[in-house]
């Protein structure tokens, strides 16, 4: 049963603390089955998400850590709603930022 549910999921959440899911098929807007640590739950996705891309599984404020694999992968540059595409347009890297050196960052 669990195996069946697993194959039906269209996106994966990889850590308990994660606020993003990764699409494992191309996703159209609508209710989408997402595999969380404790089973499959539906999340309403509000825009098309390409295979391999991420969307928020809960609302994220501006300047909030983005968590995947249970680890910080960057920081939001604007507020992100549940179901919204999470990528370079709303997330910045915190590392290797030569552009911020000497600017108090």
């Amino acid at each position, binding site marked *: 049963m669990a*195996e069946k549910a*697993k*194959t039906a*999921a269209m996106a*994966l959440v*990889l850590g308990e603390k994660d606020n993003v899911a*990764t*699409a*494992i098929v191309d996703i159209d807007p609508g209710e989408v089955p997402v*595999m969380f640590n404790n089973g499959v739950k539906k999340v309403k996705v509000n825009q098309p998400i*390409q*295979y*391999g*891309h*991420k969307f928020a599984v809960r609302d994220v404020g501006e300047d909030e850590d*983005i968590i*995947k*694999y249970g*680890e*910080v*992968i*960057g920081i939001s540059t604007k507020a992100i709603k549940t179901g919204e595409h*999470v*990528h*370079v347009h709303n*997330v*910045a*890297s*915190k*590392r*290797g*930022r*030569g*552009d*911020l*050196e000497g600017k108090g960052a």
Partner: protein
Amino acid sequence: MMKFLGYRRPDGQVGTRNLIGVIPTTVCANEVAERITNQVNGATAFLHHQGCCQTPPDIERVSFILGRLGKHPNLAGVLIVSLGCESVLADEVAEDIAGSGKPVKKIVIQELGGAARATAQGTLLVQEMVIEASKLEREPCPVSELVYGIKCGASDTTSGLGANPVAGAAADIIIRNGGTVVFGETTEFIGAEHLLAKRGATPEIGQRILDIVERMENRAKAVGADMRGGQPTAGNIAGGLTTIEEKSLGAIVKSGTTPVVDVCEYGERPAKKGLVVMDSPGREPELLTGLAAAGCQVIVFTTGRGAPQGFPFVPVIKVTANSKTYERLKDHIDMSVSDVVAGVQTVGAAGEELAKEVLAVASGKTTKAEAIGYFAAMDIYCTGPVI
């Protein structure tokens, strides 16, 4: 006991291929090296862009790496091709390689009177070496004599979800059986180094991991720009990877779960058996060269978007977890593990399959990159300017 069939060399090392290497000591000798290998079956050239007009530390590195490559057990013999006036000293490189007990010859283009004569002379020498090498037969060797390298390139999200965990599972199997696994790409530890450092066999090894990451990040920062677009690359971003941290977290799982027993400099031969970190950049030509110089006899290369290259004398096994990439690029990719992402195959089962494939390729099975000879664009990682 897990075994593979290899070629025993005079210095006791074991090769998985039995080729004659043609190694130019400077970029200016590339064409002659290439023409010689075009004319002799069983010979392969390591072409690069270094060897002259560089800072002394880089010249030293190039000499060291050319020596390490020449001593590689997959090469039964070596022809050094020198222009004659380059900074790298061809005699020293040749002497270094000859220390391994294998035959080494040298030609100098300026002394022989140009490319045509040098090509003719080199061709005759390499032809003889190939025939002599062909007399050697493979023999069973324990996995403890296998050193295999892991690289991930042209990554996308499926690399972190499927291909890299599978590569890690295979690494665990080979290491449990006494083998050695080398991985690098220090840039792709950024954001995940705390997890890797915890796996150091001693606190000192953990600290060295943190140190090499800091050194690499400072090099990137010194340019004064956000490195995104360079790392992660434009292709990584198109594939869904947003930041270097995300790329790194997906990348380090390719090293499996065993402790890191040593941290080596670029191209250095690991002194210990087990899992070894090699300080190195992420770009393919330099990273693959570093793994070969370290002595890796096989390389496992995971990819999401579809990186095509192999290496001139080390078989490179391409693995992807992206089903679309596998269908599109079957002539470059040796193995698909997309069932892992779909949840219908376990990482462990796919890891066992990959470990078997590593032994099959080590024993002589031809990889796709070898079959089509896709490996000419290699280089040596240098950190100073061309002067």
